[in-house]
């Protein structure tokens, strides 16, 4: 996927004027947040569950190596394989090798953000293997040559008309805008592909150390077919997904479903524990887990460690007013919204992604809904500090802040500055009480008036009152 994070502002400006996108984002606002709050209200112990989840994740991160090794040992015991991949390239290459070993022509895929992160589809296609997305949203995107704009609802930026359009074009069937008909059409198209696929690739929501299992949760059941029908099942996922026990996993499943869609439980919860055993009715003959690092182990022990608690529920973006205004594509890479604004700089570099951690008012809504209490604003601020100390922030910002701080550190001079700014704005306003246009402050006055100061500064007035 092409990175457009450096063009965030331009992306955002276009998105704000895209009527179709704005309509779709409107639906999002009415959907997930409302459902989440209903689900939370129904569960009085939800806050306690969040505390438990946070503490457990912290414990896991402190012992990440131990649990990962335990997980690996159990996968091997079950007859599967684990591949450790430091970079996206390593991971893609490994997956291609496995595909080649079984002479695969087509692979079916369940929804996996890690596979987006490593840009797997492009890589496979370039190397003669056809990937087929089986999640409905991802399938639609693949037909369009599009990318997810949301981590659990990848096609949230589209409207029904868009789907009807692309199905008509690619399926060569009569155009329909009945969701049921469209769904049926997708099912029929995908069914053949399921049957013919040589390899099934899925992500994982969690990896269970004590059993060597991986689990994916879906509401469509496509994951089940992806991982049971083909002869080879590859799980591509990242190292922070490991949890110690099945019971720990259920704690996170409860948090995840409620935080994401407001469900008490996701519809399909599918565990994979190694390849098919003698006597099993079905299941793959080969089972591989590709564990991607891609900068995560660097985050352990750093000021960004808390980000690794993330369970990819999407609550932070669902509640983010900035995401809600500009949509996921504006962020210009795989992970959008507040969680993306923390992760993206780690993965593609702060030089490329610097605008993202700045694109927040720090309203704190994301942190207030995050099931594992990740202090997202604080972590975005850490990126801003990193940027500032590396002299990457725009000159205007550095000079502006530098100049302002010079005064803020000198109360007497600061008084003079506020007195003169106060006077300047009052002169600008005349008798109107507000100003329509201020030089160098177009950002403000393009969209709104600037209320004028009322009288002299507080400090001046206070002084004269005390003296009188």
């Amino acid at each position, binding site marked *: 996927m092409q990175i457009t994070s450096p063009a965030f502002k331009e992306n955002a400006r276009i998105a704000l004027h895209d009527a179709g996108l704005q309509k779709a984002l409107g639906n999002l606002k009415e959907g997930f947040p409302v459902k989440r709050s209903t689900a939370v209200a129904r569960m009085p112990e939800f806050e306690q569950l969040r505390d438990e989840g946070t503490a457990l994740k912290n414990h896991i991160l402190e012992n990440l190596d131990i649990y990962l090794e335990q997980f690996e040992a159990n996968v091997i015991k079950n007859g599967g394989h684990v591949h450790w991949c430091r970079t996206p390239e390593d991971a893609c290459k490994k997956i291609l090798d496995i595909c080649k070993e079984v002479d695969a022509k087509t692979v079916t895929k369940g929804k996996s953000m890690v596979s987006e992160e490593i840009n797997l589809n492009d890589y496979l296609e370039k190397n003669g293997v056809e990937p087929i997305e089986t999640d409905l949203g991802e399938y639609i995107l693949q037909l369009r040559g599009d990318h997810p704009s949301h981590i659990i609802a990848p096609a949230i930026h589209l409207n029904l008309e868009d789907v009807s359009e692309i199905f008509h074009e690619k399926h060569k069937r009569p155009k329909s805008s009945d969701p049921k008909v469209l769904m049926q059409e997708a099912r029929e198209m995908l069914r053949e592909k399921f049957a013919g696929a040589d390899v099934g690739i899925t992500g994982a929501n969690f990896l269970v150390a004590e059993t060597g299992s991986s689990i994916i949760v879906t509401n469509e059941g496509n994951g089940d077919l992806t991982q049971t029908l083909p002869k080879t099942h590859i799980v591509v996922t990242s190292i922070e997904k490991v949890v110690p026990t099945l019971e720990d996993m259920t704690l996170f499943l409860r948090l995840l479903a409620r935080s994401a869609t407001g469900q008490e439980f996701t519809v399909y919860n599918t565990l994979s524990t190694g390849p098919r055993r003698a006597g099993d009715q079905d299941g793959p003959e080969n089972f591989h887990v590709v564990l991607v690092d891609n900068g995560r182990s660097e985050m352990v022990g750093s000021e960004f460690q808390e980000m690794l608690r993330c369970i990819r529920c999407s609550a932070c973006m669902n509640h983010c007013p900035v995401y809600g205004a500009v949509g996921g594509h504006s962020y210009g890479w795989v992970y959008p919204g507040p969680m993306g604004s923390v992760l993206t700089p780690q993965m593609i570099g702060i030089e490329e992604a610097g605008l993202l951690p700045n694109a*927040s008012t720090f309203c*704190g809504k994301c942190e207030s809904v995050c099931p594992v209490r990740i202090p997202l604003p604080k972590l975005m601020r850490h990126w801003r500090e990193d940027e500032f100390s590396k002299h990457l922030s725009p000159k205007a*910002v550095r000079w502006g802040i530098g100049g302002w701080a010079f005064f803020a550190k000198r109360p007497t001079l600061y008084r003079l500055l506020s007195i003169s700014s106060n006077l300047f704005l009052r*002169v600008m306003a005349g008798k109107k009480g507000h100003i329509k246009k201020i030089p160098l402050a177009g950002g403000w006055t393009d969209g709104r*008036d*600037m*209320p004028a100061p009322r009288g002299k500064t507080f400090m001046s007035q206070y002084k004269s009152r005390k003296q009188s």
Partner: protein
Amino acid sequence: MHASEKPIKVGLFVTCLVDMFRPSIGFATIKLLENAGCKVSVPEAQTCCGQPAFNSGDKKSTQDIARQTIQAFDGYEYVVGPSGSCIGMLHHYTELFDENDPWKARAEDLKSRAFEITSFLTDVLDFNTILSKYDAKATYHDSCAGLRELGVKQQPRKLLAKVANLTLSEMEESETCCGFGGTFCVKYPDISNRMVENKTSNIVDSGATTLLGGDLGCLLNMAGKLKRQGHKIETRHIVEVLAGMTDEPAIGDADYELGQPA
């Protein structure tokens, strides 16, 4: 609780926006505090809380400003300000210093004494002798930092319930950010503008004649948008209403002769 004969020593944190844009908020805050039995002083050495530097990643300048503010408010039993955002920033000072830095303890101490005005009146003083009167149907915007960092939600509503002739008509999404965000509105004006548009449409839909809030930054933003859109809704800081100091024109409505401030 404090005995009434010994007034509580409060240092007023004016905030830079109140200093520059709307001094009446500072005077209304003083009046409320005095009514509640406090002796209020305004330390000279204060400037801004340092939030613009903090949120721009300039930690060094933030630390300098933090030390200056901590020193300026030494010796006051409480530090009170008419802004959840700026008082929230005073609380953030604790994050700026390492455990073994002596400023860390001083920052913790300041944090334990620093309160947003409506929370101070309600949670600390249990003060509810509001004698003001204001004819309006008002709606209240919950500014983010006050709400989520300091837990300011019921306090302003409790106090407003005491104001004669005022009814409160809650808007949809009163807890959603207005798009001000300090430097955010300058760095990302398009997005900020969309956010404040959503806000004003909720304000208008509430049917209120007055918009109230506890943070001048947000109020300037929303008032500026309401003005640009041509709405007649008045915007005021809550302390003006609580202190009965509403003779002053509302935010953005001023009409005065230069050189003869009200």
